């Protein structure tokens, strides 16, 4: 007959350990939950603060978030900046789908009058050394867009110089800047058409 004692012992000890260790994790989780949430929020705020001047808003910008379908038919997050309940700026997550190596994720900040406050690349797969100059840490190229407007009139000029536009590419790559410029242009034009981006009720956020 099978000796049941060692089996039950092994089983019991293992269960004890499972409960102890999981309990410990749970405890830590409870302890750090709030801190992590606030850190996440701060992270968003930090990025936004790079492209939106801090004197333009004093709301809980990370909370003031709208998930909406954009011109590309994808879901995109939009943060609203308000100063004393006055709408000041929109920070739009957008995507340049046709980079040299696929999607380039961008964050575009627009003032109320659709002036571009700033652009940042948040994720991309462009060739290191060539296409990665869209990162602000690698080159200041992306900062050139701050302060510009996109209008129906000048939208033709929103292209790299080689295509007859006003923007310089950077050495070694043409596709990447093209894609980024196109994405900024289209995002801005799309945002200009939208009415309710400021007024819609916040439906996402940290």
């Amino acid at each position, binding site marked *: 007959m099978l000796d049941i004692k*060692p089996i039950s*012992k*092994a089983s019991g*000890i*293992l269960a004890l*350990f*499972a409960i102890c*260790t*999981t309990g*410990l*994790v749970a405890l*830590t*989780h409870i302890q*750090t939950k709030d*801190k*992590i949430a606030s*850190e*996440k929020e*701060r*992270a968003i705020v930090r990025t936004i603060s790079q492209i939106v001047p801090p004197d333009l808003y004093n709301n809980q910008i990370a909370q003031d978030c709208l998930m909406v379908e954009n011109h590309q038919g994808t879901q995109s997050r939009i943060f609203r900046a308000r100063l004393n309940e006055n709408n000041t700026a929109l920070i739009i997550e957008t995507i340049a789908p046709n980079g040299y190596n696929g999607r380039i994720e961008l964050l575009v900040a627009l003032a109320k009058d659709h002036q571009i406050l700033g652009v940042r690349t948040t994720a991309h797969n462009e060739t*290191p*050394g060539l296409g990665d100059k869209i990162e602000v840490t690698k080159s200041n190229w992306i900062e050139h867009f701050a302060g510009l407007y996109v209008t129906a009139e000048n939208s033709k000029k929103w292209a790299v110089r080689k295509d007859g536009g006003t923007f310089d590419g950077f050495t070694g790559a043409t596709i990447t800047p093209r894609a980024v410029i196109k994405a900024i242009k289209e995002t801005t034009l799309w945002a200009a058409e939208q009415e309710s981006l400021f007024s819609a009720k916040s439906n996402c956020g940290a």
Partner: protein
Amino acid sequence: MTPLQDISWQGIWKNNPALVQMLGLCPLLAVTNTVINGLGLGIATLFVLLGSNITVSVVRNWIPNEIRIPVFVMVIASLVTIVQLLMNAYTYQLYQTLGIFIPLIVTNCAIIGRAEAFASKNSVGLAAYDGLMMGLGFLLVLVVLGAVRELLGSGTLFAGAELLVGDNAKTLTWVVFQPDENFLVAILPPGAFIIMGLLIALKNKYDKRIEHIVVGEQEKTKIERARVTLES
């Protein structure tokens, strides 16, 4: 050599978890493109290793042999999760860079290896010390590898120190040189393999040299011959 000295020697040099045992290569190679990243992961691993060695050593006499591996895994996994949560909470940005490699510490064989090979056979004090030394050995390799890669690939050292110790550490970043083009392969994954290989080669060469010196001094142990049969 005293036992403690021996443990230090084993952990940091002779039996270095990264260079000799080649354990935990996945996180090792993936995150070491800067010194700070290496340091961050190294510290995280060190804590987990220390914690798991202590825990395993404490409970070693109560655990039946057949469930020791699941127990070790649970201990390590929960420790890693705790470290991950703590990092997430207190060094958020570093956590963002090190990304998925923190949970991967779970699969770092160096940790379960030490639990199985050392902690489960030794007292708590020794196990803790071993965890510390092994962790240090791993951390050192991470830092050195990170330094070499960062220097070659970006021309800087300690870039991103603010991720680890706060914004006022930004000044720590040391731009060694600023060429037009960097040796990018160093910070790309293949570069990690190549430089790691070179580090190992360097260590082996150095070891050989040491051996030559040591052998000259030490007398080889003589084996006492056993008699297979009776002498009458």
